[in-house]
């Protein structure tokens, strides 16, 4: 995942692993997404994906310690289509990306929903380990309307960078 050809980040954020910072980050993302042409629902979904990702870093990466550091790098890409790309990096516990999978939703139990939600509301959601510590997650989302639920099955999937 080389960054050689990427434009400079539009906004880069460094924050502590504190749950009370999730709401301020969501507020920023929603405002940015609306200015970038996302409608209300899409902006809300992008903020939800970032919230779930940060909550997982706080709970799993840092085991709920409030002094871990998290980096968010937000880029507004234009090529080939207008796309929001958000990288989320931490220095916490690592996990093999192939082990991060949504659970079977037919089983009714609390928890295990975050990754499923993130995948459902974005166009790409890719985990990798960082060296020497921590995880990197890349989320991508394009502004466009799609019917709820079936945007993954429609024609457009072929051009989507999603690799679930």
């Amino acid at each position: 995942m080389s960054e050689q050809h990427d434009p400079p980040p539009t906004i880069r954020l460094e924050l502590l692993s504190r749950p009370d910072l999730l709401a301020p980050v969501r507020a920023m993302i929603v405002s940015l997404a609306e200015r970038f042409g996302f409608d209300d629902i899409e902006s809300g979904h992008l903020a939800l994906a970032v919230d779930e990702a940060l909550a997982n870093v706080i709970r799993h990466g840092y085991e709920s310690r409030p002094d871990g550091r998290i980096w968010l790098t937000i880029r507004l890409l234009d090529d080939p289509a207008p796309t929001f790309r958000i990288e989320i990096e931490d220095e916490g516990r690592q996990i093999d990306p192939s082990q991060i999978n949504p659970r079977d939703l037919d089983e009714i139990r609390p928890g295990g929903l975050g990754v499923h939600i993130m995948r459902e509301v974005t166009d790409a959601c890719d985990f990798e380990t960082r060296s020497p510590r921590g995880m990197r997650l890349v989320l991508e989302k394009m502004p466009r309307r799609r019917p709820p639920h079936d945007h993954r099955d429609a024609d457009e999937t072929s051009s989507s960078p999603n690799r679930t």
Partner: protein
Amino acid sequence: MPSDLPIDIETRDGATIVRPSGEVDLARSPTLRTTLGEVIGDGVSRLVLDLSQVDYMDSSGVATLVEALQQCRTRQATLVLSGLQDRVRSVFEIAKLDAVFTIRPDLDAALGD
């Protein structure tokens, strides 16, 4: 920093109505979890969770409600959700839980069942 989620509790028509306001996320769902645990532990038979004042909910909020549903089922109490705003309903749909919970459009419908 205050992380409090304001929660109203009211009894009406034999039901206990719990009404949180604001954003139910990782910072605030523990408050809701504690309140629901207490109300259910008190032996309520019919619990209505009025979500009309909740503008945002993430999976930590949804997990809290799934836990409450399981506690209610164990105790043969009923749990009804009412007044979900579109963005909150959307999270239940994505989690495929919209058919698992009893969801009513508003408080009157939830009490009238």
